[in-house]
């Protein structure tokens, strides 16, 4: 086993062992699915926009992936406070490998979470295009990697746990709400439209929605390119920040 593998494995093992985390992190997506689905579904459909669950289900999967992935950052702060990070930093392994291993681990864990939510959306009446499921899971993995790396980049700059909820409220929540996860972009006002169009997550949402529902706001090509470029850039940023971290 090499360093990359063992870092990845540690994260997956720890995730699978913490049942409370798996169940706890399903609460929020479930709440959104039920409240928005039941609350807005009828109005949305009455307004002639088609099936709301078809629009909402991919958005909620992404929500679950994004929130689980960003947790990778919290784990780094935790590891630093409890000393384990030193064991990793003093080892003959490059900082980039450590950061990349954690990114892959975070992406894997968040995809597992996303797939669980996908199964739930099936139970509440979501009918996906089955041929798109595997590509969509790959898409969710890339979104997971993007936000794991983002979490690592932020965590490398934060000194304690207390500042992480602030990041959640002022960075992650706006990114999620301005990604078109919960409402269609074609009817949104211009300001909102501009804000969503500069948000890379919007293209991730569109990609998953297109793969599972068949309708793209942009296109498969544009969505994939924006998502991949954004992920690569954030991984580089995360690696750079992590390089500066002190145990």
């Amino acid at each position: 086993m090499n360093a990359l593998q063992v870092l990845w494995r540690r994260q997956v093992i720890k995730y699978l062992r913490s049942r409370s985390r798996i169940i706890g992190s399903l609460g929020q997506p479930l709440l959104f699915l039920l409240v928005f689905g039941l609350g807005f579904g009828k109005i949305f459909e009455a307004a002639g926009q088609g099936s709301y669950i078809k629009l909402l289900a991919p958005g909620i999967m992404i929500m679950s992936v994004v929130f689980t992935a960003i947790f990778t950052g919290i784990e780094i702060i935790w590891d630093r406070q409890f000393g384990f990070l030193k064991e990793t930093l003093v080892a003959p392994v490059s900082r980039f490998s450590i950061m990349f291993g954690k990114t892959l681990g975070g992406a894997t864990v968040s995809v597992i979470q996303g797939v669980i939510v996908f199964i739930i959306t099936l139970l509440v009446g979501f009918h996906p295009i089955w041929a798109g499921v595997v590509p969509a899971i790959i898409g969710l993995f890339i979104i997971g990697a993007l936000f794991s790396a983002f979490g690592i980049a932020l965590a490398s700059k934060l000194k304690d746990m207390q500042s992480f909820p602030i990041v959640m409220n002022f960075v992650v929540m706006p990114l999620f709400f301005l990604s078109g996860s919960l409402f269609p972009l074609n009817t949104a006002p211009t300001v909102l439209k501009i804000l969503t169009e500069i948000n890379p997550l919007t293209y991730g949402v569109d990609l998953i929605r297109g793969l599972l529902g068949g309708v793209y706001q942009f296109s498969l090509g544009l969505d994939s390119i924006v998502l991949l470029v954004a992920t690569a850039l954030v991984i580089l940023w995360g690696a750079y920040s992590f390089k500066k971290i002190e145990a």
Partner: protein
Amino acid sequence: MEKMIEAQNLTKKFDSLTAVDSINFEVPKGTIAAFLGPNGAGKTTTIRMLTTLLQPTSGETKVNGFSHKEVDKIRHSFGIVFQDPSLDDDLTAEENLVFHAALYGISKKDAHGKIDEVLNMVDLNDRRKDFVKTFSGGMKRRLEIARSLMHTPAVLFLDEPTIGLDPQTRNKMWEYVKELRTTKGLTVLFTTHYMEEAEKAADIVFIIDHGKIVARGTVDEIKKSTDTKTLEEAFLKLTGSDIRPSEASAADAFKSQARAWGRR
């Protein structure tokens, strides 16, 4: 004698504070050396520079003949037990060691035998499948020592290794370390606040204060030069008896908080 640890004009400044002030020292192969000094004297900062966790402001360090710029070679050369625990509580003892083996590029085949060997050495083989969170402080320390020796380092750094250990565990720990020094020529640098520990274990002693080495030599030489009967008296004579101001770190604050709320 081959020099295993060297520092030349080693200096570390944090903003206006000079934590380590142009110190020079060396530790020959197979020697157990002690770093003594009041809180904030610069002991841990020096160890952090020697172990590549901190870049010196100026000066040179060498471990096992490698300069601090040869990061990977230097990191393969030493093992370290940190002042604070650095195990993953949510993994088993064995998993912690497997993790270490992978980080140090020990093959799966070799790792198996090595894990057995080090666990036997610290009498933890029967607890290998247990989660570290079920371990007492002394057992965690023993596991950390075992882990630090897994990649057969030439040099071992111990930063206050015996804090919170009972005399039995402390004795046992020094037994392993001394045995490894004799059988494998292991070189050891440790810091401690227990003077009797330094008297018992150390071949040479460095007393550090305000970032400078204020005395060095064998315990007897230091006692003789200060005209005192015990190392503790010598230490107080050299560093004064005022209590040093020290602040709780962010990590300390976090830990008390985590204890109050329960971890996960």
